[in-house]
């Protein structure tokens, strides 16, 4: 499955607003065309990484395509057979599959947006000078460093559990069965807890890179704190926020550990997202053929969405340089 964004950045004029001055091409590009031998030599350092990535990420997809045309339940090995596109027609009429896609969007968007808002708030606090700033920063990044499975189990059993969870001990909140009454919110809050530090680190980097003179000037002009934030800080932060949202989405759309550990997709199918539904089809139902078809549809959908996302990436990573340069 290749996804070369051949690519929006090419067709686009350089975004001068963002990159003060754009480099013509990365680095020491000689002006004369390279000979084919030179081109080969240049490829050599790239090849090992490229080969291993293709072998591990692309070949399985081809195999998945092949499986998706078969009726194959692992537990009925004698009945394996070729069914062409039947798995696909099943997939498109499978309302659980559609629900899973919707849940994926809700959970990803919810977690990414909320952790960005909280992360930005934390970053604004940490951008000030106060006693013990380093300690607070260390405390704040800790949730991100906890193993995701551990975090999920911790929240499930030590926080949300209506009998012996910690939330149960808060006055007025006892006896609420968080996970079954608010399943999506429970998953999202676990994710938010883990990803707020991530957003904070990115927006904090943005805040600390603000040119001091602009802020000084604003102060001299008598701008209020809100005005300074709205007209100077926020425009500067915007690209950091976009970057955070994008990277957060890339990581969180794959959320599996939290759902597997906390709700197993339930109650009903309230928290079954695409990764979990695929897993369920493959390893609970052991319907390898059908799971493969679901996988193919998901991958195609992901490509459509991420082609769009890549356009955003390439603009974020500044014009033709793609990267932070």
């Amino acid at each position, binding site marked *: 499955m290749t996804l070369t964004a051949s690519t929006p950045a090419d067709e686009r004029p350089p975004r001068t607003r963002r990159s003060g001055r754009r480099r013509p091409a990365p680095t020491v590009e000689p002006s004369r065309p390279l000979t084919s031998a030179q081109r080969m030599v240049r490829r050599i350092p790239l090849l090992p990484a490229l080969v291993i990535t293709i072998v591990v990420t692309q070949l399985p997809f081809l195999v998945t395509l092949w499986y998706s045309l078969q009726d194959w339940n*692992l*537990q009925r090995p004698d009945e394996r057979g070729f069914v062409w596109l039947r798995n696909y027609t099943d997939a498109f009429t499978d309302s659980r599959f559609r629900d899973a896609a919707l849940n994926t969007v809700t959970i990803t968007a919810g977690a990414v947006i909320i952790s960005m808002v909280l992360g930005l708030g934390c970053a604004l606090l940490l951008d000030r000078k106060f006693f013990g700033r380093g300690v607070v920063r260390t405390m704040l990044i800790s949730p991100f460093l906890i193993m995701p499975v551990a975090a999920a189990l911790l929240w499930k059993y030590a926080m949300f559990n*209506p009998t012996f969870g910690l939330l149960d001990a808060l006055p007025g909140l006892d006896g609420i*069965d968080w*996970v*079954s*009454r608010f399943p999506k919110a429970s998953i999202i809050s676990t994710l938010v807890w883990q990803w707020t530090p991530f957003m904070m680190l990115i927006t904090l980097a943005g805040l600390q890179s603000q040119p001091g003179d602009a802020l000084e000037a604003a102060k001299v002009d008598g701008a209020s704190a809100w005005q300074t934030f709205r007209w100077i800080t926020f425009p500067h932060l915007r690209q950091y926020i976009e970057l955070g949202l994008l990277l957060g989405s890339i990581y969180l759309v794959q959320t599996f550990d939290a759902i597997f550990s906390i709700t*197993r997709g*339930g*109650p009903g199918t309230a928290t079954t997202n695409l990764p979990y539904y695929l897993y369920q089809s493959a390893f609970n139902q052991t319907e390898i053929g059908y799971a493969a078809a679901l996988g193919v549809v998901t991958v195609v959908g992901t490509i459509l969405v991420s082609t769009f996302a890549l356009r955003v990436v390439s603009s974020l990573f500044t014009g033709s340089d793609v990267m932070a340069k």
Partner: protein
Amino acid sequence: MLRRNRWVTAALAVTTAAALAACSGAGGGGGGGTEGGGTISVAMVGNPPMQELEKLTADTFTKDTGITVKYSVLPENELRDKVTQDIATQGGQYDAVTIGAYEVAIWAKNGWLTDLKPALDGAAGYDNADVLPAMREALTIDGKQYAAPFYGESSFLMYRKDLLAAKGITMPAKPTWQQVEQIAARLTDRKNDMAGICLRGLPGWGELGAPLTTVVNTFGGTWFDKDWNPRVTSPEFTAAATFYVDLVRKYGQLGAPSAGFSECLTALGQGKAAMWYDATSAAGPLEDPATSKVVGKIGYAPAPVYRTESGGWLWTWAFASPKTSKKADAAARFIQWATGKEYQALVGQKVGWAQVPAGNRTSLYANPEYLKAAEPFAQATLDQINSVDPADPGLQPRPAPGVQFVAVPEFADLGTKCTQELSAAIAGRSTVADALTKCQSLAEDVAADNK
């Protein structure tokens, strides 16, 4: 460049440490099963009796036989997924695995399990005839025994004798579900955080699915009739599911939709519930002062019934050996040891008689030391197990074996998805009728595969 050097040094140090560790043999891998003929791999659920087994292995079994046992301990769902995956793909990673009666029927049909009958019947001192008949039958298909029970259980009703006495209630010798509902109504005291009854609500065919199906059975319902017609929306099934959901909603524990065995054990053990219908194996931890605050206050009654004579389920965690194992002999020796009388005596001496894996052997229930330790519940457990007829658990003939399950591969998924719907009904997010309509259509797909 001081900083750089520091990083390089650190990286080198870590690498060296890891390499040394790898060489010392703990995790370096290297070709799966090829190393050391004296090592077998065992996958099992992480229940307390298995944890004891893991701890006792090195000093006894390995010492006596020279066979090293490597364990992979997982929660029930993960274990089932993984072992299914391994056996179905002929992965050959495990020499012995814990499985239940559900898998035995399906996997034996696929020819995936070794027939242990010769090894068990022939072993000196193993006394296969001593294994409880209900358990042995559940693991035997066409005269071949594919697994040996490590421990077994049925289900019964546990109740707080003191709370019932305080209200002047006596538990009938053979309660019906209607009587249980009335008692639950009188014992529920929301102000003091006391639920009348604790019942599983956690999705999963082996979680909520198990007690629910026994209620369905005794209400005269069934998942499928003998011709594989799904009967999930039948009046009997609907009545049973409605009864169960209403009972737990009205008088059940807090957090019912996500409560399984552990949550109910906590609820009853910490004095937050007055009754609990669940596995007979719950009695051990309830009578253990380390985990329970209600030791000695619990009474044990048979599984409640309605239209059938007996209402309990039948489950066993049993050791089986996949045919893909290359060390069948060592695996058989391990299984003989783990499910034998001597192991029970060993646990009795080393850990305590109340912790002995029970429900698998007749002789255990004649052992005075065990009876002394398990006095409150031993007889109730044995009676309950013996009262279950795995071949005929309800009011009608069934298309496949199983009391609280239907032994076809698709049932795990059907049961899990369907209990997800019913768990949502318990949470008040949907109705029983809606849930069962969805279940029925799922059941029709399963039926189509089996007709």
